[in-house]
């Protein structure tokens, strides 16, 4: 029978040392909502689990003029209760809120969602739309990787052996900027995204879009940035032409598969619908800013 070794270090250095010096395949665990299920399916493999939730900075979330410094292991339930964070990044917080049930929220984290690197991960498009940067720490020091470069494939990330995700830095949004994340699921809750779209928008006083970033999920091996969709929005008042063009750009950028959750045609169509709706919602949010 396979054996599991479990450690719950209280400092980042200790955690890095554990994973760097492990003789067994090592896994960093935050909420464990993906990892525990994966481990049960691989009963025959001995492994080391490094639970990082006892490291204070891994579960902290601080806002300052630079933006949000988010502990990757902070559970989504605690994150979504933070009204101050939600006011700045409503789409990101909503994406975190969409992961699983209330029970899963009590465990799952943004960092775990990111490192698990599912194509359908809800927070990844929202992180990308907000220009989030991963702070990676390892025995060879520290490096900063944009989220869109962090995820390298289905279930794969850029972490080298002995490295872990230590923090997420989400820049302070420009003035008159808001984001939105929408996903499609067959039910109202509990499902994995069939398609998802995150949009961050900046509007000037006249309602003209001056900056935009669009990222879509569940329609390719990784979440993807759609510059053409952003281009379609920038310079417009989010009129029908611009929204239609943005939706079409998202649909064109999509490279989905058919599976138990949706078909290629369905995903391609719906990701356009979501992009249009997310852009509209983000703009409404800017309009509602004081």
């Amino acid at each position, binding site marked *: 029978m396979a054996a599991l070794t*479990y450690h*719950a270090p209280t400092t980042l250095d200790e955690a890095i040392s554990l994973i760097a010096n492990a003789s067994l395949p090592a896994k960093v665990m935050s909420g464990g*909502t993906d990892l*525990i299920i994966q481990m049960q399916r691989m009963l025959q493999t001995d492994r080391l689990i490094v639970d990082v939730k006892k490291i204070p900075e891994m579960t902290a979330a601080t806002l300052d003029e630079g933006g949000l410094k988010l502990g990757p292991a902070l*559970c989504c339930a605690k994150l979504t209760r933070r009204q101050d964070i939600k006011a700045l990044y409503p789409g990101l917080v909503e994406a975190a809120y969409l992961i699983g*049930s*209330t029970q899963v929220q*009590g465990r799952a984290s943004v960092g775990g969602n990111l490192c698990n690197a599912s194509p359908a991960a809800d927070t990844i498009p929202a992180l990308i739309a907000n220009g989030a940067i991963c702070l990676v720490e390892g025995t060879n020091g520290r490096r900063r990787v944009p989220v869109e470069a962090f995820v390298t494939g289905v279930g794969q990330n850029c972490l080298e052996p002995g490295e872990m995700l230590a923090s997420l830095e989400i820049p302070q949004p420009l003035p008159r900027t808001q984001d939105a994340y929408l996903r499609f699921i067959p039910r109202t809750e509990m499902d994995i995204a069939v398609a998802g779209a995150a949009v961050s928008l900046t509007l000037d006083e006249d309602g003209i879009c001056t900056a935009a970033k669009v990222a879509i999920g569940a329609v390719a091996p990784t979440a993807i940035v759609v510059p053409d969709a952003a281009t379609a929005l920038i310079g417009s008042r989010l009129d029908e032409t611009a929204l239609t063009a943005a939706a079409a750009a998202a649909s064109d950028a999509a490279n989905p598969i058919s599976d138990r959750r949706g078909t290629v045609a369905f995903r391609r169509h719906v990701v356009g619908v979501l992009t249009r709706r997310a852009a509209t919602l983000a703009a409404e949010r800017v309009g509602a800013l004081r």
Partner: protein
Amino acid sequence: MKAHVSTTINQEPVEFLCDPAETLLKVLRDNLGMTGTKEGCGSGDCGACSVMLDGELVCACLVLGVEAEGARIETVEGVASADHLHVIQEKFLEHAALQCGICTPGLIVATKALLAENPNPTEADARYYLAGNLCRCTGYDKIIKAVMDAAETMRQGEAHE
């Protein structure tokens, strides 16, 4: 090798040995004989094993037993007091909010968490908060009525104190 874990369950100190691969659900049910927490899926998709872990509602099947070290756990067995049921439990009975009853312990724990977080939920709030607690018998109608009634009764109780 088994790990030794010291924890608190329903306000009582508890120690147990477990394999680090064992979930908290397995530990509760098989090692500690606390079978009130039910297993419906083992993958966090049904909510039958809902428990409170350090104040957060979680599925015990998605927690390792070793994570209980130093934690506070609350299970369905701790909801009623020695001499009376919790209002939520009473309302579930009054409204016939259970048929087979296998989802009921999880729903009781989750409802308690909901009303602690939001004493005045709308029906939609309750339906979304409890979306992770599957019930196949009732169609949820009577469950939601029981939850809303329990919320109102608890608010009135608070107001009278």
